[in-house]
């Protein structure tokens, strides 16, 4: 995913916007994007500011689009639910679907891969929901 997706994502359960992003693995591209500024119409996930509060010239849209997030974590600051970004795709299922064996297996692998690299962060989020428990 790109940072630009934060312009659209909200918590599937409590609908809070914007979400908090933690990047674990990212890749930077060299290509140039021919896009119109602002790329996002409402919220800049890269600067974590609303578009209306930013001067158009200061928007780093090109720099932002070159960064691709491969793995990371989305956290809802209101209800505390968390959603993994796995192989570039955010998994944002509602509570009842997270027990589905196919979803749970993916979320469990994600936790096991990253929890020792980000111990404080995971200690906090796993209190809310822990697919390895």
């Amino acid at each position, binding site marked *: 995913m790109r940072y630009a997706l934060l312009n659209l994502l909200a918590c599937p359960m409590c609908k809070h916007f914007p979400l908090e992003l933690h990047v674990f693995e990212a890749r930077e591209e060299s290509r140039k994007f021919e896009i119109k500024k602002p790329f996002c119409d409402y919220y800049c996930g890269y600067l974590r500011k609303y578009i209306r509060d930013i001067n158009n010239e200061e928007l780093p849209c090109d720099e932002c689009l070159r960064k691709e997030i491969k793995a990371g974590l989305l956290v809802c600051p209101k209800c505390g639910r968390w959603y993994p970004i796995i*192989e570039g795709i955010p998994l944002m299922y509602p509570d009842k679907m997270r027990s589905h064996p196919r979803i749970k297996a993916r979320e469990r692998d994600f936790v096991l891969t990253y929890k020792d690299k980000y111990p404080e962060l995971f200690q906090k989020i796993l209190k809310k929901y822990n697919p390895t428990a």
Partner: protein
Amino acid sequence: MTDTLTAYDRIAKGYRRRAWKLLVKFATEDLSNSEVIADLGCGTGDLCRKIIETSPKKICLGIDFSPNMLMEALRKSKELGSEFLNPLVAADITHLPLRDSAFDKVIMASTLHHLIRKHERIKALKEIQRVLKEGKEVLITVWSRWQLSILKEIIKGFINYLLRRKESFWDTEFCSNSGCRSYHFYSLKELIKEVSDAGLVVKKQGIYEPVRAREVSSKNYFIKALKTD
């Protein structure tokens, strides 16, 4: 046991859904406008890629509940270099992970009929109402119940209903090697009623039969509805 997610997750490799003309036309009628579009139940993302190819000013977000479908979609849009215009999110249509009033257009093709509980279908439709901008439209298609090709499944549904295993006469499942998927077979009147109940204003409705359809079912109902303020 019916497990629509697993059934779709297993057939993701090689899965393709035609980008129906009806849908592409709806998405790209304002060709030069920058618009944010959502395709709910995007599968391997064929429709979004077609929309972006037709009008590169659009951002087309794909939502599906099958992670494998989305992996395929991502791989294909990367090959075209258009993945930055085609974000993908794994989610459930009854709980969209999207902010209010963010979309200029929403498309949901052959997806709503997988929810066999009426209250879930209404919930999904209300979610569309929530994420659409005011004055903007959604286009929905579902399978029609009046088709000979699915008669066997419909009869199976009736029997299960009589045995009180199903909520509606028109609920059934399709099974193959990959597993079983649930379906609710719509009448047009019922579709109009549910869309209206969710607070959307119906603008146009009818039958759509795509040319050269390879899908099991070829007769679809479509409905275009508006979010008012």
